[in-house]
């Protein structure tokens, strides 16, 4: 199978819309087909990784735990925009999985290196 470099660019908060969950599903599918997958989190997308989701009250399936399975899928390239975290009062310590924090310019360079970029 040909391996391509996929990047999912996540810019939406979780639960309010379905984008975050859809992105995660696409990540798992691409990884199941042994593609080279990375994830970028910008704008409200950084909220997806905020730890401590308790979704019982809104009666939706929580998917914070699923980010923990990404390592099993060999998905270890998670990039987070520093500026987006700062605007939201977040630091890397607030996130549920280890990530690489970088600037928007650096993220832009990462996007240039991809074969496929999917924006959510």
């Amino acid at each position: 199978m040909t391996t391509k470099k996929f990047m999912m660019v996540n810019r939406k908060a979780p639960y309010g819309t379905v984008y975050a969950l859809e992105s995660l599903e696409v990540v798992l599918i691409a990884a199941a087909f042994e593609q080279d997958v990375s994830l970028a989190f910008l704008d409200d997308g950084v909220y997806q990784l905020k730890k401590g989701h308790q979704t019982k009250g809104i009666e939706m399936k929580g998917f914070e735990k699923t980010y923990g399975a990404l390592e099993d899928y060999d998905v270890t390239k998670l990039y987070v925009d520093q500026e987006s975290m700062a605007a939201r009062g977040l630091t890397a310590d607030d996130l549920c999985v280890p990530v690489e924090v970088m600037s928007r310019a650096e993220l832009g360079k990462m996007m240039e290196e991809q074969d496929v970029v999917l924006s959510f």
Partner: protein
Amino acid sequence: MAIEVNGKSYEVDEEGYLINLGEWNEDVGSFLAQQEGVAMTEQHWEVINFLRDYYNEFQIAPAVRVLTKAIGKKLGPEKGNSQYLYELFPYGPAKQACKIAGLPKPTGCV
């Protein structure tokens, strides 16, 4: 659609997957296995319990490649290979075992 086990009715989808995974118990698992034509042994249950634990921890049913790797890590390399798992669940370890375990179809399973 629904199945009946020990006089209690359980809702399943059109492919036979249990709708409410919280309702699962070993009798339901045995019934689903019987429907799949799988004669359950201790080795089968080991995989089923592994899948249920995995789901509880990560909220997903793993893809086959991930399942074999994770089983190898936990139960030893002689079990962490697709040949062993396909012998137990001929129609696909992820698909068939997930159904018996009362989990949804694995993500990435077309």
